[in-house]
């Protein structure tokens, strides 16, 4: 970069022209790397390295992946992606995941909304303890629940259905959603509720027409967390499904087959798995910032 500024032909040789010297000095100052830039660069490097490597692998052939070290694909190929998008055993994994994640998010939010409202507005027996105990489910690892869920769902005929996984995930998502929404709801003055009642709104009408628009960003944040948890959770979703509702994460980890490891396809599947999360983050990024500031999260 400093070459570009000095190469202006004859700029410095004009006698009496002092103006050229000043921008040169300024530009040199501008490009001098400072501490925070280095830290930022390192941060991005470490953060993006695994993701870049995944992308890199997904665009290579298996032969190139195994042949040695290369920073970028020498023989760029989209065959890995093509395989995933045409083979039902691959793409149905995505469809299954999206189905149960959506179900889970809808169930979690619609259950958590009234619960959070109760916690934020009413005092009832044991409300504070209950509110804390909501979170204790999140203290136990999902593995603890895998066995009872497996047996329970098998015996009631829910095994290998989308709703089974969605319901299992609500165990973790409902408490979190209640916790997040309660923070947002507490920020809405109680007088707004009362004004609405005085105006003549019935409770359901008030809740949908007045209250929910007020906590829209809270609902967005809660839905985001539900989505992310359900999307990345592997253990329960793998335990509770076999064929019909098999999620993508399970498909990916079971592809260590007799024919060896299909590195390129796996990497492509990984990239496609990151995409929905990245998209969701992109859409809710403003809400999240607001959410972290306003709500409890």
């Amino acid at each position, binding site marked *: 970069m400093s070459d570009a500024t000095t190469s202006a032909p004859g700029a410095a040789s004009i006698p009496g022209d002092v103006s050229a010297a000043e921008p040169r000095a300024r530009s040199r100052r501008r490009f001098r790397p400072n501490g925070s830039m280095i830290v930022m660069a390192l941060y991005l490097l470490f953060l993006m390295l695994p993701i870049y490597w995944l992308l890199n692998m997904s665009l290579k052939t298996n032969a190139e992946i195994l042949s040695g070290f290369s920073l970028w694909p020498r023989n760029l190929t989209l065959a890995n992606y093509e395989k995933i998008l045409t083979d039902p055993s691959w793409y149905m994994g995505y469809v299954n995941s999206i189905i149960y994640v959506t179900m889970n998010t809808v169930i979690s939010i619609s259950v958590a909304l009234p619960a959070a409202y109760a916690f934020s507005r009413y005092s009832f027996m044991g409300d504070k303890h209950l509110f804390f105990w909501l979170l204790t489910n999140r203290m136990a690892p999902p593995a603890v629940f895998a066995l009872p869920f497996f047996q329970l769902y098998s015996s009631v005929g829910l095994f290998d259905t989308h709703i089974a996984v969605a319901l299992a995930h609500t165990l973790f998502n409902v408490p979190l959603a209640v916790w997040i929404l309660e923070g947002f709801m507490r920020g809405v*003055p109680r*007088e*707004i509720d*009362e*004004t*609405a*009642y*005085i*105006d*003549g*709104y*019935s409770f359901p*009408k008030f809740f949908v027409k*007045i209250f929910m*628009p*007020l906590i829209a960003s809270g609902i967005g944040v809660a839905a985001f967390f539900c989505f992310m948890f359900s999307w990345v959770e592997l253990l329960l979703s793998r335990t509770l499904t076999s064929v019909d509702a098999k999620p993508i994460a399970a498909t990916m980890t079971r592809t260590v087959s007799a024919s060896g490891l299909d590195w390129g396809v796996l990497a492509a599947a990984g990239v496609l798995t990151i995409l929905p999360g990245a998209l969701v983050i992109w859409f809710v990024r403003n809400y999240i910032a607001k959410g972290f500031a306003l709500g409890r999260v």
Partner: protein
Amino acid sequence: MTLTLESVSKRVEGQTHIHRTDLTLQNGTMNVLLGPTLSGKTTLMRLMAGLDAPTTGRILWNGEDVTGVRVQDRKVAMVYQQFINYPSMTVYENIASPMRISGKSKDEIDAAVRKSAEMMKLTPLLDRKPLELSGGQQQRCALARALVKDAGLVLLDEPLANLDYKLREELRAEIPKIFEEAGSIFVYATTEPEEALLLGGHVATLWEGRVTQFDETPQVYRHPVDATTARVFSDPPMNFLPFEKRGAVLHLDGGREVPAAGALGGLRDGRYQGGFRPNHMELERRHEGDITFETRLAVTEITGSETFVHLDHHGTRWVGLIHGVRNLRPGQALTAYLDPAHVYVFAEDGPLVAPASYVEAA
């Protein structure tokens, strides 16, 4: 239309917020609830509105028991001290919302909204969201919503407390005019005696959850039934002076003796509390019979054209409101003058024995 509270009380977790209260409010009247913070003004309003249920007693609307009726089914409107509007709706939608719910026709709503917006000077702002407005405009929006509802009972809970001085004066002058036309029962809570006097109508003074007196405002101001009412209805609070009357002599604290002049001469012998309002204290002799007090100045506050003087008199703090700006130094000795005609006499336990004689003359 009347609103009647029959021995209504409210207890929350063993604490009495409102003691047994009987109150009847008449149609088309302005009723001011006057009391310091935590005296129960808001609680009483919430009981009237039906937002809270009373622990004991009944609430009657036109003689009909409405104690357990949901707030949605009562004809009430309420404006809070905080500016409460629906932030996600425009000003127009906010004002229209009570009419929308009651299923009025579109034209009817439009006419009513525009009329009340005109009254509240909100017409150019109808398309804005409440949070884009100034505090005064937000509160006017809330007032317009209360107006448009055509409620029989309109509750205003310190609606002007959070507004700046200029706006407060402006709205305070407008509110009685606007609500007179509507012809409902108005209840207006305030902490300021001055506001109660300006609004007129009736006043109920509250002290620690008790309605100490309910009557026409000038009557309460001139004839407070007890020392508590007098203290509530005076800002700064009324000054008190304990004394004992024996024969024709008043024995004050500190061993002073003063001849019992005027109305004070007619009292029976015994111990009393004399009470006088800050604006009746003088720093110069005005009348021949003025009682003098040797005091020490603690603090002065100058409010433009008037001066508040805080005086120590034998360990009691008095406040005087003196016309004009005075240059006084804290700690200096001052002689205060008081016309005995301005002294209310209360029994030691509170009830009024004799109002100040200047009131009788007026």
